[in-house]
């Protein structure tokens, strides 16, 4: 339930999340790879029992406010969940047949089976949310006439960018827009592709396209990218998985022309380029001067970006758009220039990822709640925080302070041969409990804080001596830059603040570089006076309905 509360879609995100958390994971600072947070969330969702009894109860007495959510993707559903439990009456509109939005239409089934989407969307719909599927919204004006107290727009970024180069029109029958093609595959309208396929683009959509093509009969599938391999937008693990499936990724090739004859595609002509950086570090792709290359193929999938499109929002109803065609919003409240209309997800600030959409959904829900109560939208409820000592005995802590030295565990997968045969077979089997436990043990317990009480320190230096990563120093005080250089091991990560005590008896201060602290608690175990304590920090990010702090 902890997983569900802020994540909303643990099973879905546990499979397909962009994982902004993993590069931030502190394990990556002392070990080769971070903790597999994403896949641990998946197994937590996999192993749960029936949670229906634990879901929040919807109040029998509604508060009388009606909210329309346009689109049934992650942002809209998050708004629906956060507000439904507060007594709001929610109606979700979507042009599809079921909830899920792009999670359902664009993520191949071998990465995210429908059953998972169904289950997690149903938890939300089950909170008394009214759904109107199969309804294409043609006019926001008409929606607004429906008497809603607030309208949330979570329609995603539905239009795939096209490659506007010679030959595009002539060979149109063999050239497809990536996300549209993926949607057709997802809903079973398409079940095969030619043998030789070229995918243009280096993002995660390109990876989904090439891997889907591989499963639908594509034998010679390759990805061709303008930029270098490192700069590609796709997540490293997605690139790795594509390569694992025998798909080459070719870099520094700019498509110049679709070569065709008699209305039939022959191949794509590419210009070879190299990256050059100017003084400001900006990259430009410069032709190398080598002859262009023609790569023959039967079909092309264009996955070079997504765009927002709001043809259904009238220009004169008060919702303003900027010069890129994006709605003008307050970045915090996600409120548009028409007070009762809010945006979230890819539709709000441009295409990002599912977890960002969920976060924006939470924010928009808070705004809508404040708005409907007639309160100031800028007054945001603060997160709940708590800090409690974990000491149980002399060397006993209520958390596991033994640090695993094992390497990151690989998620078990189906054999490639059988996985490539059927596009609906999920490739990853997920961790088994034993592997998951070993992986979870790699966590460095960021939630357990080392709390220092200068008053009772006798400066025996025991903590400084025992610290396995040399992050504690007792030195003369100074300004931050000076302190950083004088520590036992210099603190180079400027993003991580130093923990500096008040002056001790000898005039020195205790300085701790939190950057590579393992939270093993050895400093506290070696402290004779209890000046060090390990305390668990809990933060509960505010949701709609939480109380605003009184000032």
């Amino acid at each position: 339930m902890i997983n569900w509360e802020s994540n909303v879609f643990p099973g879905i995100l546990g499979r397909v999340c962009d994982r902004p958390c993993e590069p931030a994971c502190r394990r990556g600072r002392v070990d080769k790879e971070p903790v597999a947070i994403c896949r641990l969330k998946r197994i937590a969702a996999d192993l749960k029992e029936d949670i229906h009894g634990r879901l929040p109860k919807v109040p029998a007495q509604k508060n009388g406010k009606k909210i329309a959510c346009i689109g049934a993707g992650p942002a809209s559903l998050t708004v629906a969940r956060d507000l439904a439990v507060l007594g709001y009456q929610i109606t979700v509109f979507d042009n599809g047949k079921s909830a899920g939005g792009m999670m359902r239409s664009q993520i191949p089934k071998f990465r995210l089976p429908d059953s998972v989407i169904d289950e997690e969307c149903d938890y939300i719909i089950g909170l008394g949310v009214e759904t109107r599927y199969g309804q294409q919204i043609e006019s926001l004006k008409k929606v607004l006439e429906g008497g809603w107290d607030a309208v949330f727009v979570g329609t995603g970024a539905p239009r795939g960018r096209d490659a506007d180069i010679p030959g595009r029109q002539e060979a149109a029958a063999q050239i497809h827009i990536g996300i549209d093609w993926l949607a057709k595959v997802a809903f079973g309208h398409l079940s095969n592709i030619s043998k030789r396929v070229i995918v243009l683009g280096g993002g995660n959509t390109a990876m989904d396209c090439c891997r889907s093509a591989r499963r639908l009969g594509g034998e010679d599938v390759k990805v061709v990218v303008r930029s270098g391999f490192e700069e590609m937008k796709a997540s490293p693990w997605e690139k790795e998985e594509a390569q694992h499936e025998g798909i080459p990724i070719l870099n520094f090739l700019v498509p110049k022309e679709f070569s065709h004859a008699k209305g039939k595609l022959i191949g794509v002509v590419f210009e070879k380029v190299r990256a050059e950086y100017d003084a400001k570090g900006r990259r430009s792709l410069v032709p190398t001067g080598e002859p262009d290359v023609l790569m023959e193929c039967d079909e092309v999938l264009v996955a070079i970006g997504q765009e927002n499109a709001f043809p259904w929002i009238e220009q004169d109803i008060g919702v303003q758009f900027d010069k890129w065609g994006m709605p003008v919003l307050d970045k915090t409240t996600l409120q548009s220039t028409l007070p009762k209309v809010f945006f979230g997800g890819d539709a709000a600030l441009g295409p990002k990822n599912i977890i960002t959409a969920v976060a924006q959904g939470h924010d928009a829900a808070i705004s809508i709640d404040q708005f409907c109560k007639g309160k100031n939208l800028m007054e945001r409820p603060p997160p709940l925080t708590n800090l409690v000592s974990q000491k149980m005995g002399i060397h006993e802590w209520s958390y596991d302070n033994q640090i695993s030295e094992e390497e990151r565990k690989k998620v078990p997968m189906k054999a490639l041969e059988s996985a490539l045969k059927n596009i609906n077979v999920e490739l990853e089997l997920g961790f088994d409990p034993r592997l998951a436990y070993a992986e979870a043990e790699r966590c460095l317990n960021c939630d357990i804080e080392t709390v220092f009480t200068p008053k009772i320190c006798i400066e025996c230096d025991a903590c400084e001596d025992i610290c396995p990563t040399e992050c504690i120093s007792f030195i003369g005080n100074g300004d931050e830059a000076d302190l950083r250089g004088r520590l036992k091991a210099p603190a180079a990560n400027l993003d991580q603040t130093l923990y500096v005590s008040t002056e001790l008896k000898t005039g020195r201060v205790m300085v701790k570089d939190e950057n590579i602290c393992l939270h093993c608690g050895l400093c506290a175990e070696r402290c004779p006076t209890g000046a060090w304590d390990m305390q668990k920090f809990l933060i509960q990010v505010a949701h709609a309905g939480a109380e605003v702090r009184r000032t």
Partner: protein
Amino acid sequence: MTYLAKPKLFRPDTPKNALGYTRRDYEGAISTLCAGCGHDSISAAIVQASFDLDIEPHRVAKLSGIGCSSKTTDYFLGNSHGFNSVHGRMPSVLTGAALANRDLIYMGVSGDGDSASIGIGQFAHAMRRGVNMTYIVENNGVYGLTKGQFSATADKGSKSKRGVINNDTPIDLVALALQLGATYVARSFSGDKEQLVPLIKGALRHHGAAFIDVLSPCVTFNNHAGSTKSYDYVREHNEAVNRIDVILPHDPISASYPPGSLRRVVQHDGSILLLRKLGADYDPSDRIEAMNHLHERHALGEIVTGLLYVDESAEDLHRHLNTVEKPLNQLRDAYLCPGSKALDALNASLR
């Protein structure tokens, strides 16, 4: 004590010495002493000194007797040779080892009980013979393993944790070492690694009997008001005569100090000790002045620390005995036994 093994993970930018070792490579098993024990700080100082001097761990032999202090040899230099001897008998075992193999670096770690009580005779003879070693006494003034009785170094008039006053005259091991002919004599404090680490480095590079008395508070039995070996008392009464920097022959000398404040001592192996004077003009090359200074200040209730005496032209036991350069344990039969022909020739010469 701590039950966990120290995690092996460390920061990617961990400093390495000339041999490519990190500080962690010079550590030993995790300490089983009380949390906050001064002895653990001394172990850490030995680790730091060995790391700084690029010492190859297999070239070190660490020997000890019995007691809290003598347990510590397990907690540093885990890849070195070690010998845990009978109570108070570390000096004679070490002397034997040093005679057999002069190639190793010898480190004797002992305590006030081990060296000033049961082993005082052994201590005295190791000093006067000039065994090439670093003799560290971790001095806390109490018998920690037997629950805090006064040891022979406890000051007269100091109070035990249970309120008993000590009426016996203390033994000052530094004064003894000076009198007995040690050629490198220092006192330091476990809570001041800035002073202690260079002193250990200087001692490790000293060719002769080097003695360091390290005041090391016993947090469990001797860290209360009325004790003269507590963290607070030592900090209040600490009078350092100098600070030293140890510079190896291959190191560039980068420190610059005002003229006249610096004394340079070149040791036998080419290492240089740079002594920065603190306060009173103190000459560490004068054994008699050192003894006088020690007694004068002691009468004033001060604890004199720093490098108190160093003999630039120190000689060790091997020099006194005129032994061969090659370690005795490497002398094979062919070398030791010239054969029957040589014996016949010798016998013939005597007929």
